[in-house]
């Protein structure tokens, strides 16, 4: 004799939210969990992928949040630009915000050329579906009959996988589709849009650099990237890509003269950038045409003010192109300074 079961209720529409289970992954409350980042195994610091997995390995797992990566450009700025694009593309895929500054090309041009990611489970935002009328005959085909509990879930479990994935692969022969790129929020700083007044007063920094620093400060404050900002909404990372700093197009004469007048403009800017980044959830990649800078001591100081510095030396046009030893590679990456940020060990 089976006793009548009472109080079970209608198991039909129990869950109105999209989560089908009440299982919550236990996250440590001390560490922020932001999609696209992971804590370092060495010191628990938040790391961000640069977009190139082998470069992440060289950097000790990734780029630390709040750090600056300096890339010394190769002669034709081909591979350094590529790394910058990988960095920005990784930001789009991880849904971080971007800030691109350039004096040469429009930042939008750089953003148009981002490589397309090779993955099935990248979160591609679907266009908002039109509300269906109940009289459409298509309804009957779409409603699930057996697994009806999963009716209300999104078709692809995209959010979970893209946040747990660190480092993606890209197809350089294709550019990123416009809809993926437009899903990410980008701030652009195009130097020709900011007219400079030439002031005769002496100041250790240039107008262009101070305008850039001010613009960065505004973005960080407004969008809530400062570490001390109220943690009401979910936190995100700002990826900053600064193209070809120190070149003549920024008004700097570091690359033109042996004894430049603005010796300390770029170093002052880098110091200000480091101060800004240490108190915000942001990462910066800066490319500098170091092969044009004659003063090696100054280059050393520039590298010292960044947290990690790598130099790229392309084989094109140099005698190494014919050297059989380097047949499989396109250029040499010299790690000039391993990041010692927040760690005692190099």
């Amino acid at each position, binding site marked *: 004799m089976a006793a009548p079961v009472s109080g079970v209720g209608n198991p039909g529409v129990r869950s109105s939210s999209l989560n089908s289970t009440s299982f919550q992954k236990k996250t440590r409350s001390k560490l922020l969990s932001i999609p696209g980042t992971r804590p370092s195994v*060495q*010191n628990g610091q938040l790391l961000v992928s640069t977009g190139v997995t082998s470069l992440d390995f060289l950097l000790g797992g990734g780029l630390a949040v709040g750090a600056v990566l300096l890339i010394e450009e190769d002669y034709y700025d081909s591979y350094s630009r590529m790394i910058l694009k990988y960095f920005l593309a990784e930001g789009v895929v991880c849904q971080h915000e971007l800030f691109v500054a350039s004096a040469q090309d429009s930042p939008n041009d750089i953003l148009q050329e981002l490589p397309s990611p090779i993955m099935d489970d990248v979160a591609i935002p679907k266009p908002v579906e039109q509300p269906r009328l109940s009289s459409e005959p298509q309804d009957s085909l779409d409603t699930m009959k057996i697994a009806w509990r999963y009716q209300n879930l999104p078709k692809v479990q995209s959010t979970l996988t893209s946040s747990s994935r660190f480092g993606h692969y890209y197809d350089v022969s294709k550019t990123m589709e416009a809809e993926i790129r437009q899903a990410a929020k980008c701030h652009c700083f195009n130097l020709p849009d900011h007219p400079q007044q030439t002031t005769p007063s*002496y*100041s*250790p920094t240039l107008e262009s650099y101070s305008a850039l620093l001010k613009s960065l400060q505004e973005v960080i404050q407004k969008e809530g990237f400062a570490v001390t900002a109220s943690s009401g909404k979910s936190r995100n990372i700002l990826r900053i890509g600064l193209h070809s700093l120190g070149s003549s197009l920024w008004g700097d004469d570091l690359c033109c003269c042996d*004894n430049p007048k603005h*010796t*300390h403009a770029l*170093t*002052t800017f880098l*110091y200000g950038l*480091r*101060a800004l980044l*240490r*108190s915000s959830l942001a990462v910066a990649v800066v490319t500098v045409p170091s092969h044009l800078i004659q*003063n*090696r*001591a100054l280059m*050393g*100081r520039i590298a*010292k*003010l960044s947290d990690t510095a790598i130099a790229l030396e392309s084989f094109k046009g140099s005698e190494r192109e014919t050297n059989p030893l380097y047949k499989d590679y396109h250029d040499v990456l010299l*790690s000039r*300074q*391993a990041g*010692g*940020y*927040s*760690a*005692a*060990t*190099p």
Partner: protein
Amino acid sequence: MFAELNSILNTFPDKFSQEEFIIISERRCDASFLIHHFLSFYLRARCKVCFLGLVQSFSHYNAVSQRLGVNLVQAKEKGQLVFLEGLQESLDPTKGLQDLFQFVRSSCSGPSGPLGCTDRSGGPEEWGPPVLLVDDLGVLLSLGVSVGTVLDFSHYCRATVCSRLQGNVVMLLHCDEEEDDGDDEGAEQLLKGLTHQCSLTLHVQGLPTGYCRDIHGQMEVCWRRQQADEQHTLNKLFQYKVHDKGASFFARGTSSAFL
């Protein structure tokens, strides 16, 4: 605090010489582990420490010091540590370093600092002789301060802290290889001027053959003044390896990786 370095330098938290001016010069490497050593050493020795951290943020120094067993936040609250975070202050190099020197002078003189911070139990705590630590004079050069100004600043600091207050000064300077026809203003010139004034120099450099996993570099210890009790003026040369919680020093060629 690295025990091996203590025995090399013959200093211990309860017995160390005063009125010392120590220069750490780094070349092709990162010698900030020595700054962390001196910071934890003098905090353990119950000295009043004034730290000008121009290169990194306070949380960085705190994170590393915690691994060495010293809590900087507590030291700051008790008034033992006065910390200047260079990244947050807006250092204006055109005005010179006078403000910086005023800060150093006011933090180092007096038993409890200029603010007269008293703890809850009543009177101010008595600390030992003041110590000034500067992490990276090279940053001042990068910001546009001239070599002469930095030399003057270091001279004034030494006169105040070492001679008048019988304390110690430790300064770190990063220099790079410069070309032979190098410019007049440079870290090399600053280093020469400072070495002339100091009592102990630690020259740290990376290995000329490049990066090695087991040996991170070599350190040369040069005493400039004759010690009162010991007559050695020999320079000592060591190689070192930095670990997560310290550093080990060994004679050249005797790294544990090879023996």
